[in-house]
């Protein structure tokens, strides 16, 4: 399983764009990159996933350079409710029994008024 490295914490202010970068230097050809968001006292929830280039949904954008050794989660115009822990995961897309993802420590984002 590819290991990921991301900042432990980040601070931002309401209305700003937040970019959280994750390093995954030993990502494999079959690996996909997925980001989860976790609010206090709740389980993590899937927010975005990608393989290469750029992916955008109603919550965030995910930028993946050509070498795929890193990825950046971009949250546009954050609000106080975006305060959460964000996890970057890399996982094999093979349809194997027991295929699982490994969670690292995540990035604790604090959005201030």
């Amino acid at each position: 399983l590819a290991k990921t490295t991301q900042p432990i914490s980040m601070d931002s202010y309401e209305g700003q764009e937040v970019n959280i970068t994750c390093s995954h230097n030993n990502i494999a050809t079959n690996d996909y990159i997925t980001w989860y968001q976790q609010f206090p006292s709740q389980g993590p929830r899937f927010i975005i996933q990608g393989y290469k280039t750029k992916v955008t949904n109603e919550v965030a954008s995910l930028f993946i350079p050509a070498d795929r050794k890193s990825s950046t989660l971009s949250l546009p115009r954050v609000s106080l409710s975006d305060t959460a822990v964000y996890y970057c995961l890399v996982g094999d897309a093979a349809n194997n029994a027991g295929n699982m993802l490994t969670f690292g420590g995540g990035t604790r984002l604090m959005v201030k008024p």
Partner: protein
Amino acid sequence: DVKVTQSSRYLVKRTGEKVFLECVQDMDHENMFWYRQDPGLGLRLIYFSYDVKMKEKGDIPEGYSVSREKKERFSLILESASTNQTSMYLCASSYPNSAIYGYTFGSGTRLTVV
């Protein structure tokens, strides 16, 4: 809306008690997982199951066992609860291709062992 339901939101148990944490999913997922989450340690995998009656140890299985008699239900068992098992326990489920379809988590059970 798809769901992973954990039977209890909060539990308080005494040291030495046998504790059952129940998890049910309604998505017909093959994989089910039990994690614990502690401040500063992130999510750590206890056990997972990829089919009925199948189980695999995760990173921290000591002091725990699991049961999966039906596809939709995955139980975590603390054979003799200890204070160091006070934690938030999270259940998750997924299709076999977790990297593509992702995990769906329950809301968690906060267990306190006194």
